[in-house]
């Protein structure tokens, strides 16, 4: 994690577990009359969103505000800022105003790396989703959700737990971050997708892959369904939405083959009827709403650990990055 949180791969197991344990303490805050802690009083967190993502932005906003940070929302979508050079100008503006952390969502893979390593800003950079690269806080909240549900029956860890991640892995930053983080935490990840939606070189990732959803489901401890955009059909990634749903959608029939304890997850927003049917999304196994709640706690943990002290509490504090 160092000074920044750019990739789930930057987190050691120790770092990741510290985030989870911290989030566990912070989660109880939601039950208190005053849902606020003073830890980041006087710190400024900028939500710099070059892409629309209301749910991620408000999650970070709630997290920062509950830690008493000042929050500035900077939505750059649709403005002239979608062009590259303005990332730098925007960064210089934020630097001049004085901010302690930049939470950045950007359509270009690697934009948070540029922000963190270009010398434009001194603030900590938190990747809130970049292109088709990574979304590390989503992976942390997913791992946190799994850990809460599966940990108690597995010695408090995710060691050896089988996680199926199903859908458009190729275009999914969530899948990339989850594959890295869950591997770090000892889980066994299987990516399930049609061959056209698996990245080239996936065989070198620390995961299994499968084209056969029905073969994977009965062994899984958690099933994470990824959003599949219908437009992918036009790129020839699969013939029709109907064929996709038939082969890779999670419906009631498939859900019946899951083990009793298995949870169903989705990072949202869901395309109901495409990758997941409504009865599955709304079933008892579904922890999709809880993922949202956990998102705030995990992002509080990340912001606290990065900004709460004199230096980040996770990873190598010198901020060096490859």
């Amino acid at each position, binding site marked *: 994690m160092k000074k920044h949180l750019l990739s789930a791969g930057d987190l050691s197991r120790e770092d990741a577990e510290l985030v989870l344990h911290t989030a566990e303490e912070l989660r109880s805050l939601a039950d208190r009359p005053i849902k606020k802690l003073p830890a980041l009083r006087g710190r400024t967190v900028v939500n710099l969103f070059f892409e629309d993502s209301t749910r991620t932005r408000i999650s970070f906003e709630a997290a920062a505000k509950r830690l008493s940070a000042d929050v500035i929302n900077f939505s750059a979508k649709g403005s002239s800022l979608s*062009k*590259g*050079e303005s*990332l*730098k100008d925007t960064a210089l503006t934020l630097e001049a105003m004085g901010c302690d952390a930049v939470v950045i969502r*950007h*359509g*270009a*893979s*690697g*934009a948070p*790396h*540029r922000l963190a*390593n*270009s010398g434009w800003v001194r603030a900590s950079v938190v990747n809130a989703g*970049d*292109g*088709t*690269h*990574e979304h590390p806080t989503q992976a942390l909240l997913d791992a946190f959700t799994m850990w809460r549900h599966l940990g108690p029956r597995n010695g408090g860890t995710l060691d050896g737990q089988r996680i199926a991640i199903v859908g458009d892995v190729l275009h999914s*930053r969530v899948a*990339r971050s989850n594959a890295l983080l869950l591997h770090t935490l000892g889980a066994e990840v299987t990516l399930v997708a049609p061959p056209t939606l698996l*990245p*080239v*070189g*996936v065989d*070198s*990732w620390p995961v299994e892959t499968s084209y056969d959803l029905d073969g994977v489901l009965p062994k899984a401890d958690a099933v994470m369904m990824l959003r599949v955009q219908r437009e992918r059909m036009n790129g020839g990634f699969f013939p029709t939405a109907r064929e996709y749903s038939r082969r890779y959608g999670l419906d009631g029939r498939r859900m019946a083959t899951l083990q009793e304890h298995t949870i169903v997850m989705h990072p949202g927003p869901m395309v109901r009827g495409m990758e997941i049917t409504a009865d599955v999304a709304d079933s008892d196994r579904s922890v999709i709403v809880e993922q949202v709640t956990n998102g705030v706690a995990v992002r509080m943990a990340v912001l606290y650990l990065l900004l709460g002290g004199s230096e980040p509490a996770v990873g190598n504090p010198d901020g060096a990055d*490859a």
Partner: protein
Amino acid sequence: MSSFLVKGARILGGDTRDVLIRDGVLVFGEPDADAEVIDATGLIALPGLVDLHTHLREPGREDAETVLTGTQAAAMGGFTAVHAMANTDPVADTAGVVEQVWRLGREGGYCDVYPVGAVTVGLAGRQLAELGAMADSAARVRVFSDDGHCVGDAVLMRRALEYVKAFDGVVAQHAQEPRLTENAQMNEGELSGRLGLAGWPAVAEEAVIARDCLLAAHVGSRLHVCHVSTAGSVELIRQAKASGWNVTAEVTPHHLLLTDELAASYDPVYKVNPPLRTTADTEALRAGLADGTIDVVATDHAPHPLEDKDCEWAAAAFGMLGLETALSVVQETMVDPGLLSWADVADRMSYAPARIGRVSDHGRPLEDGAPANLVLYDPSVRRVVEAAESVSLSRNTPYAGMELPGRVVATFRHGKPTVLDGKLA
């Protein structure tokens, strides 16, 4: 014109012979008391280098480079002739534009500039440009390329190959299957998947090379393949040559030295078209250059202003500087490991490109009466490349901070020094 007596240089890295530069030609074995003496002890004399692939950006992007600054950078790298690619604004697809570029080169006096003509109007890939008019112009264009774009249409490519036969021209193809590389950002492989950057498969280059080799053979014309970047491409060209087809190829210094691992920094200074490939590819390219499968080292010098690189990867322009560092990179990757002799370097960087471009007064052996196009190079020093030291208008060198061997000490073009003591003369 003053004359120079170069003393003690090793000709092509071999025997030491003094050479007199007088009246624009080389004279061996004749003293001249009036000549300015240049102590070239320990230096290597090579024929002036010829670049088959340079972007000078003028007209249109004078903020990135001009013919003057680009040819100055070339002279600093030991070049005496450069082929200026056609993707300017306006595109060099008419006699008027190529003559303008040619004339700017003459006025600058640092290099002879040979404009490359566009194959299709506006590089749009739909209609042949007036290739004959450019060939007949004062610029005497012989190399035609839509570089930056692939002539993707097989019929159009066939016609171009056929048509240039009339004036002994050559089509230099930028081999990139357009549909396979839509929005592509870097070499397709394990790393592109991990970095979430859209992949650029090797097959997109190789498929076009295979097709074009077959077309060239079919119509009996000359094909030149620009910036070969994959092991598979080397193999295809090897086979085409073995079949006796008239195919030549070039490799850039950066594809000899750098690999796609650099993209992991997301620093767009490493973003280039074709993309940096794997270590296995660089090894195949070096072997291909060594055995003559690849004829030429060409720089694909592609200057870009800071703002086009100081941004996120996907928004950045493709391309990197190359003129000033080319010889050093070739020494590092080819000469020092023993893959090429200095005489071979003279072939790959001077004789062969001049031959392919049909340039008569460059790329000639260093012998009595030859045009005095000469570079003196010190292979014994090592230096750390500083972007700020470039004489190019742009700073997008991928070698900044890297230590490379060698230094161009002097360059002579038609007997006149363009570089002396490592500085522009």
